[in-house]
């Protein structure tokens, strides 16, 4: 069973792209078929996985742009294999920026649903699809929410970084009001957590009280993450045994459990058994 998860926060720089990349790598590493979608015209995720040069030279019709523009590019040109087994990328393109209009909930419903209708058949071929979104609720993020089974909200444990949380609740409510379907929040994930800071610990505690979806696992502040991204690799392909990779593993476990709870995936253990059997 497939699950599509939108990585959303109204705040920029809270670790959406970075988490998408590392989490995608961690899930692929354990034998799941993973698709990451770069739905942000900044194309950070694409640059991270393919390198700046290649990312810039992509033909837009082989990226998420094709889905918004209604270009019928065949699936095998849209879905790119990466250097990492089991991890595929639907690249982003700056060309898609013109589609990212405000008040997307008021445009023609068919246009709102374009990403959903194009992406879901592609996502059928994967166990988990993670959509990296823009830090605003314009058409790109809105389309991603409509395409998704659940939302994952990365947030920083500081005021500006966490303010977007309330906004995302509004987004989710707007999906329900407009489309009449509920969009569950699979998790709220604290990123760049530094346990030595009183402010971070305080935030973690406050969130734990007021936010039932808060993940116990956090993404710690660590030099390994930016290094891995500079090397163009998810953390598991950079320092597989490091504390940073272990932390992402814990996040991956929790995400799979939540998805299973939401009925979006078979239980984690089973799928692990299955993949190890297949490998054997």
């Amino acid at each position, binding site marked *: 069973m497939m699950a599509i998860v939108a990585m959303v926060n109204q705040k920029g720089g809270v670790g959406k792209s970075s988490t998408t990349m590392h989490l995608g790598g961690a899930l692929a590493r354990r034998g799941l078929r993973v698709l990451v979608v770069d739905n942000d015209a900044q194309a950070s995720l694409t640059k991270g996985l393919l390198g700046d040069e290649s990312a810039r030279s992509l033909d837009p019709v082989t990226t998420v742009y094709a889905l918004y523009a209604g270009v019928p590019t065949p699936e095998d040109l849209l879905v790119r294999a990466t250097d990492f087994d089991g991890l595929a990328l639907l690249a982003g393109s700056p060309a898609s920026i013109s589609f990212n209009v405000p008040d997307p909930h008021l445009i023609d419903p068919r246009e709102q649903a374009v990403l959903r209708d194009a992406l879901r058949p592609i996502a059928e071929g994967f166990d988990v699809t993670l959509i990296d979104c823009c830090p605003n609720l314009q058409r790109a993020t809105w389309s991603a929410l409509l395409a998704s089974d659940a939302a994952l909200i990365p947030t920083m444990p500081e*005021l500006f970084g966490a303010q977007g949380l309330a906004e995302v609740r509004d*987004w989710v409510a707007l999906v329900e009001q407009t489309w009449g379907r509920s969009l569950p929040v699979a998790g709220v994930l604290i990123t760049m957590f530094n346990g030595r800071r009183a402010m971070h610990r305080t935030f973690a505690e*406050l969130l734990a009280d007021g936010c039932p979806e808060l993940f116990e696992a956090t993404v710690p502040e660590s030099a390994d993450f930016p290094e891995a991204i500079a090397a163009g690799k998810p953390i598991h392909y950079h320092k597989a045994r490091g504390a940073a990779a272990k932390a992402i593993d814990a996040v991956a476990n929790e995400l799979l459990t939540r998805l299973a709870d939401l009925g979006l995936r078979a239980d984690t253990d089973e799928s692990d058994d299955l993949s190890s059997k297949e490998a054997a």
Partner: protein
Amino acid sequence: MSAEPSKADKAKEKTLAKYGASMKSSLGFNRTPGTPAGMAPPSGVVGARMTGVINDREAAVIGVDRIVSDPDQPRREFDDEALDRLAASLKGRGQLQNVVVYWSEDLGSYVLVSGERRWRAARRAGLTTLRCKILDRKPDDSDRLSIQLVENCVREDLRPVEQAAAFRALMEANGWSTRQLADALNMAQAKVVYALGLLDLPEDLRDRVDQGELAPRTAYEIGRLDRPEDQRALADRVALEGLTRDEVAAEVRTSRDAADDATGRQTSRKAGTRSKGRGGAASGSRGKASVRLPTTKVFRVPGGSKLTIEKARGLDAESYRAAARLLLEHADRLDPPSKATALAAGSAAQPQSLAESQPDVAA
């Protein structure tokens, strides 16, 4: 983060005391979600309208100059006038049906599987794009033929004989019976049978069907006559006398039975079985004398009136004479007899069929 009553915990408590209120409010706990700041409120619910509606990524709008015709398309001739009509319709009403294409790496173009007429007409009309259904690969030969033929079979602008030819081609391509074809196209088997009958008519009669002079069902009945000259004669009468389909069917039965009588009993029985179940107005007694008469006859009278004579047991010569007498009597009542006969003698406007009956009246 386990519990140690430490320096760290104290620092946390201090932060909470100092900043807790503003942190809590900024996280938006216990707040009912509303319309996101800066966004317009939703204008309505789209759920119902969009339930079960999916944008089809296999469909696309493609520039007509990016499409080429199928090099293997069997059809090479396109009626100029019909293309003009289609072009006008595309311009006026828009494109109602997608054309079907696939991408050819070799040709560097999309290749038509079906819709060549629409594509030609679109260029004629000056349209720059067509809505297309895109196949993910080139269909193999039998698939392609079937797609083209099925489209041809259900096209509304197709003339009856063209459609009949499409039926036959599709049956031959798939080895189908009329039943299977009817099922595949979701139409009545009778319609297929009638259509196929058209293909056995001589060419001039097929043309008359295509031009709308002869209804396909009527033409089918005519086709049951063996000799082309008889078929033509009956078709002429349809045009001149306005015979209905049932009348034609009755005429055909009469003449077949007459022919069978001439050739002997065995064939007569055979003819009887063949026409079994073909109903019609005159499906009454069938047997020894067996010259079957039409029960209804319609005359289109020059001058604009129409005359219908009906008799359940069949119309013989006497029926027509009796009717003629009745008509003349009626005319006499309206008009003095002496004057009327005088006029009738020299009148070219006298209805022909009635004129034929006049000697009997006089006698």
